[in-house]
């Protein structure tokens, strides 16, 4: 099977969209934070929390959508902490973000050990199953790829549209973008930059956690240590790649996931067998770095990203 055969196979595109789904949630979450002016490096840890919390809720007897809600709320709590420390207190977003990642990850692992002491292989749950959308799923290639996914994947795509509409078509979206571009102007309108930014970080963190939950509740059916494995950092690169726009970020996530799905398949070809598997695993990270370099020229960075806003300061 050569690369062309892989690229026209439906199973390849189905896998690509599946791999893209957690990235879409988390990158969208990061985009909301950054558009409001806050870089959220807590993303990696918040994804871990979401993966654990959602899965645990279902394992303890909750429904799947209840699990998604639990993941979202747990992510929002860490978002609240991040928001309070970085917005009204104006602490370094780098340091707080990394601190949140460490705190969220270690609290998760601690809870896991307490909840399941001496477990060698983590228990499995009944995860989300693919739902075939009638008629649409019969379209060749596109049908299986886009319309035979799990409900969470559909939710990810709906969210891209929803976030785009909110960002560009509502007063709330305008205020959020202004908080990231020109906070003084927002304050002059009588709105609170603090409230908008903290709110954005909470909502964004909630989405990151749902992205994590996708891993344990849709892509797999169990929780493993280090299962997030740098996906959060990749999402930060995806937001830059997408020039802080939801549609372009979605495109970036799908491109990235397609590449990831491709490397898994090329590994299994005779050509791939001669190359150390680590080269394939490295490729996504190197690709992200290259994408950052390529896009750096055109990037429309929110003007007030990482700039704390202290009222009354000129």
């Amino acid at each position, binding site marked *: 099977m050569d690369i062309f055969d892989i690229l026209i196979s439906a199973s390849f595109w189905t896998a690509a969209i599946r791999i893209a789904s957690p990235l879409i949630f988390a990158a969208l979450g990061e985009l909301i934070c950054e558009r409001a002016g806050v870089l959220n*490096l807590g993303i990696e840890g918040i994804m871990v929390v979401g993966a654990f919390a959602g899965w645990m809720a279902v394992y303890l007897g909750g429904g799947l959508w209840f699990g998604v809600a639990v993941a979202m709320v747990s992510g929002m709590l860490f978002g609240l*902490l991040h928001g309070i*420390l970085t917005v*009204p*207190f*104006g*602490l*370094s977003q*780098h*340091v*707080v973000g*990394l*601190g*949140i990642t*460490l*705190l969220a*990850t*270690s*609290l998760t*692992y*601690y809870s896991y*050990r*307490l909840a399941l002491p001496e477990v060698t292989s983590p228990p499995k749950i009944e995860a989300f199953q693919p739902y075939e959308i009638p008629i649409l799923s019969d379209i060749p290639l596109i049908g299986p790829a886009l319309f035979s996914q799990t409900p969470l994947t559909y939710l990810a795509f709906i969210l891209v549209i929803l976030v785009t509409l909110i960002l560009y078509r509502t007063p709330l979206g305008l205020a959020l973008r202004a908080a990231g571009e020109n906070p003084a102007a927002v304050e002059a309108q009588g709105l609170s930059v*603090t409230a908008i930014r903290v709110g954005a970080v909470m909502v964004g963190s909630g989405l990151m956690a749902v992205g994590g939950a996708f891993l344990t509740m849709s892509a797999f059916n169990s929780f493993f240590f280090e299962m997030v494995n*740098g996906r959060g*950092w*990749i999402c*930060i*690169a995806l937001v*830059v790649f997408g020039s802080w726009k939801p549609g372009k970020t979605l495109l970036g996530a799908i491109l990235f996931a397609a590449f990831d799905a491709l490397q898994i398949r090329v590994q299994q070809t005779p050509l791939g067998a001669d190359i*150390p598997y*680590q*080269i394939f*695993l*490295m490729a996504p*990270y*190197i690709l*992200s*770095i290259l994408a*950052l*370099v390529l896009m*750096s*020229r055109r*990037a429309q960075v929110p003007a007030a990203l990482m700039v704390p806003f*202290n*009222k*009354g300061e000129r």
Partner: protein
Amino acid sequence: MRLEPIPNPTLTRRLGLPALALLTTVIAASLLAMIAGAQPFSVLGLIIQGAFGSKFAALETLNRATPLIFTGLAVAVAFRAQLWNIGAEAQLYVGAVVTVVLGTGALAWPAFALLPTIAIAAMLAGAVVLLVPTFLKTRFGVDEVVTTLLLNFVVLLWVSMLLEGALKDPMGLGWPKSARLIGEARLPRMVDGLRLHWGFGLALISALVVWVIQRRTTLGYEMRAVGLNKDAAAFAGIPVNVVLIKTALLSGGLAALAGFSEVAGLKGSLTLDISPGFGYTGIIVAMLALLNPLGVVVAALFVAGIFVGADSMSRAAGVPTYLADIMLAMALLMMVLAIMLTKFKVRRS
């Protein structure tokens, strides 16, 4: 609310708030230990005892602190100039690889010539690893936080590839492990009979050297100026990009020394688990030390103590070792908040 600068913070404020931050951390950790079914304050005692309670424990703590001093210095140097090096983990591993490449027989030199050569080569390699993201930052404006983070994954996979290929120990029975260093490439013990190698001494010397660079040289002044305000520094005629590149060379080199010292001092060979995240923990060490090079030594001992102590506490009280990581993350967040509040007053608006 609004933040107002305090012109002359009192000594009580400057010492009290950080102390309060540590106290909050200890209380929170005790509560978490209670949830795990342990006696809350016994846990703290067990950690301290496990870290410093015996000669063996104290030496273990010093050994654990050694790589943390190096990575802490690497981060402190970089952060001072606002170069966000989150890639000390990668630089550490590259330093370790160079140590193995040169120290397993490729150079059959006496120790006094071999050890400095390996150390310098390791530093150069680590510096190069950080130079790439720094160059991308100065040339293309690519955020170095993301690139250094992503490079950690790339380098770790590269090391894994080497350990299953070019650097694999032929006698290693299939384990991904390098051959052992020759005797001349091993760092000797500092005191006969005590399990503490000269990597620790080198770490202390490095801290002193970094302190001198920061306080007594033009470069140190320029680094601080760039960190405080890049535009003002440029206006004052400081070549900002050159300073950033010099900072990267120093920072990457220091992190690589952590890898050199772990392989040549402690382990004698390279495996994929020589660093349980020393590169990332270095960030906590540096922040707790307020980026002061001498403070890094103290902070590294504190952090290493918590890790070593938590290991033995976990065995004794059945509380998961992750409590150590939680404590450090909390200490970090509480401390940056406390330090800020020593300089600013919170006002209702």
